[in-house]
């Protein structure tokens, strides 16, 4: 099987995020970068599929030079090769352009199945997998927590409010992966040693022939507002204090 797993490098969930003073994005100084946790499920599922059915796993990532570390991590987990779309014109680009870049790479790979995390934990847009499927003109199953493959088809489970859907799809297709699908493995030491020698193609936008002008732009990024200070209701009479609390909840906070 020819399997593709898309990965994005994102700030560690434990990193302290600071917004740049001009609101153009986050201050990247001192941030530790990791593989998007939802993409890890995709890489793991790709490796399990390969181990069960044979074939190879290609890792594709769009991101600045440092994203190579994340591709190497996936190679250390056991993927065979990588493609790194690295171009300053694509730094912090939108979901459409990212998907277009991925599609341009993946078309040439002719895969049976493509994995993407259901969203990235940095911008939380959750669109790339779906746009990618649309550009490639293939089916998609999103937010998958269980996957089986038989007779050239997949059967996927997707939880919805109060129930779960069992979805069948033909191949090739895009699967976006959700927590619960599997437990991603750790890179092994022999895997780390081999990863250095595995091939990674580096391509820029021109080589892929894609437009770099994003369709959507982040106009401004602001940190969440500071929480307003609490209010202490003074007085000695509990009944009066309770009445005042109800009044404030109704008239000021407008929550009851």
């Amino acid at each position, binding site marked *: 099987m020819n399997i593709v797993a898309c990965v994005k490098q994102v700030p560690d969930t434990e990193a302290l995020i600071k917004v740049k003073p001009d609101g153009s994005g986050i201050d990247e*100084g001192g941030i530790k970068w990791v593989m998007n946790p939802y993409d890890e499920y995709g890489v793991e599922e790709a490796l399990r599929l390969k181990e069960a059915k044979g074939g190879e796993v290609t890792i594709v990532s769009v991101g600045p030079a440092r994203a190579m570390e994340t591709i190497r991590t996936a190679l250390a987990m056991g993927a065979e090769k990588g493609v790194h779309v690295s171009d300053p014109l694509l730094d912090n680009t939108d979901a459409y352009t990212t998907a277009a870049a991925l599609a341009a790479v993946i078309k040439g790979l002719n895969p049976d199945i493509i994995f993407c995390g259901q969203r990235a934990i940095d911008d939380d847009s959750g669109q790339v997998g779906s746009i990618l499927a649309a550009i490639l003109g293939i089916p998609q199953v999103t937010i998958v927590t269980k996957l089986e493959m038989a007779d050239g088809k997949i059967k996927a489970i997707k939880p919805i409010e109060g129930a779960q859907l069992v979805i069948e799809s033909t191949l090739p297709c895009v699967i976006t992966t959700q927590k619960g699908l599997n437990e991603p493995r750790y890179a092994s*030491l*022999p895997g780390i040693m081999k990863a250095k020698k595995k091939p990674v193609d580096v391509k820029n936008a021109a080589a892929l022939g894609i437009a770099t002008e994003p369709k959507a732009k982040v106009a401004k990024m602001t940190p969440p507002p500071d929480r307003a200070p609490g209010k202490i209701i003074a007085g000695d009479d509990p009944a009066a204090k309770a009445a005042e609390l109800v009044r404030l909840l109704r008239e000021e906070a407008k929550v009851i």
Partner: protein
Amino acid sequence: MAKKFMSMRNLHFLLYEVFDTASLAKYPFFSDHGKETFDMVLETGMKMGRDILYPALAEMDRNQPVFEKGTVRVHPVVETVVKECGGGGWIGAHASYELGGQQIPNTIMTAFRGIFAAANYSASVYPFLTSGAAHLIASFGSKELIDTYIPRMFSGQWQGTMALTEPQAGSSLTDLTTTATPTDKGYYLMKGQKIFISCADYDCVENVVNLMLARIEGAPAGIRGISLFVVPKMRPDEKGKLVANDLNCVSIYHKLGYRGAPITQLALGENGDCRGWLVGQPHKGIRHMFQMMNEARIEVGMGAAAIASAAYYASLEYTMERPQGRKITSKNPEEPQIPIIEHADVKRMLLFQRAVVEGSLSLIFQCAIYADLVNVTDGEEKETNELLLEILTPIAKSYPSEMGILSVSQGLQCLGGYGYCDEFPLEQYYRDVRIHPIHEGTTGMQGMDLLGRKVVMKNGKAFMLFLGEAEKTIAGAGSIDELKSCAEALTTALERLKEVTGALTGLAVKGDIEVFLADATLYLEMFGITAIAWQWLIQGITAHHALAKLPAAQDALFYKGKLATCRYFFEYELPKTQGLATRLMRSGDGLTVKMEKEWFGD
């Protein structure tokens, strides 16, 4: 629970900026490696520590191993840790390619193990005890032993241990009585008892391989009659099937801390059928065992520094959040309270912890680098590295162990009453860290090793080499204004150490050996503080140069913190050597030697 237990930023600082481990790649043995590999190794270690070990920290403390039906039931996470470490190649990581390892430098694996130890010390000992035991077989064992044991130990299928202590022979190995009777079948029949053997029996491992000291029947008395054996719990028969080897766990001890790892009492040869295989030469057991012992001592230092690191970060996080009191200059009780980290005395407690933790880590990596260089250099260069490693090993073991207790205690103190309660991990760290001055040679033994053996060996050559290294660092600090006073203080401290060393060895020359060694522990303490000051000066110089390059804001804060902690060490810790020197210069009075035991009666 606190988010951080070991700082990756500080590991990078020490491993890459202070010690330049990436340059080890210039030696053929390490030529396949570089910073990229090391980064991935450390990241994987941190991930495993964070995901697997750290969440089980308190559980393993509260659910101690249980001895039932002849075996020891341990926390289920042990199986995961051993399996992941075996499957991931981490147990044999440092070994040569021929043995199935990946030739990762000891320095990097020391950091990896330190991450594990900080996450959960008890859980970390299982895989890495096996590393040490396997290394011993690889160094001195026959090809047959290597082929039989190493692959299964590296894969995590079989646990390794070191089995030295007996009920009547703890620090005094001379008195051990476990016997090995030769047979004509290539093995020995073992008989005796061992106690305090970590991880020598538990339920989720296929086999246990004990590296055991015993006396071959008829061997000379004393240390020169002791040999080293492989004594497995289950032995492979002719067809490779495992059969019981008449080696049984008869009980386990319940400990103050470090409760997730069982320490066992073993009975050997109760039915006359416990087989052992000689490792190395007969009667050279102690010498062979000391290879593992020396590695284990540095590992113990790392264990202590790692627990102190976890305690430091837990207390740091708490002091940032806990509001209590107002600035001493504030008279207005209506003003909001301030986080306790703003109080000078709390900052002092945090600085003390950081000074101990990061000073200890620095010395441990310094030793780890020497150990790596011993493996890849020859001739005089090799000897220099060997001697520096030898003289610093008792310090790298004892300083973190003894000071780690005080460091964790200050962490606990930062939390006040909460620190004393089990809702926070500090009380567990305080109990866990207490083992380190005891196992792998007590602090008293380390003191005697340093003063009685290491300082005087080869006419003081190792001592002179240490002084030379420290003087090189002082020279490097000479032109830096902000470190000038530290450099001068270290010069004075080295002079003081020379003077004390001269006075003490003078007692030895007079033949008064008992008096010479009576205050060896104090000497070790004084030497330890001086050696850590040297390491802090190295870190200060590195931080100074890094700051001069105008780094990113976050990095600048880190380097400023380093420089402040360096100054703290020189102002608050190094002066303690004066008091120690005062006593040591008068050690000739033999005060403790002359104290009669009857005078303790009351």
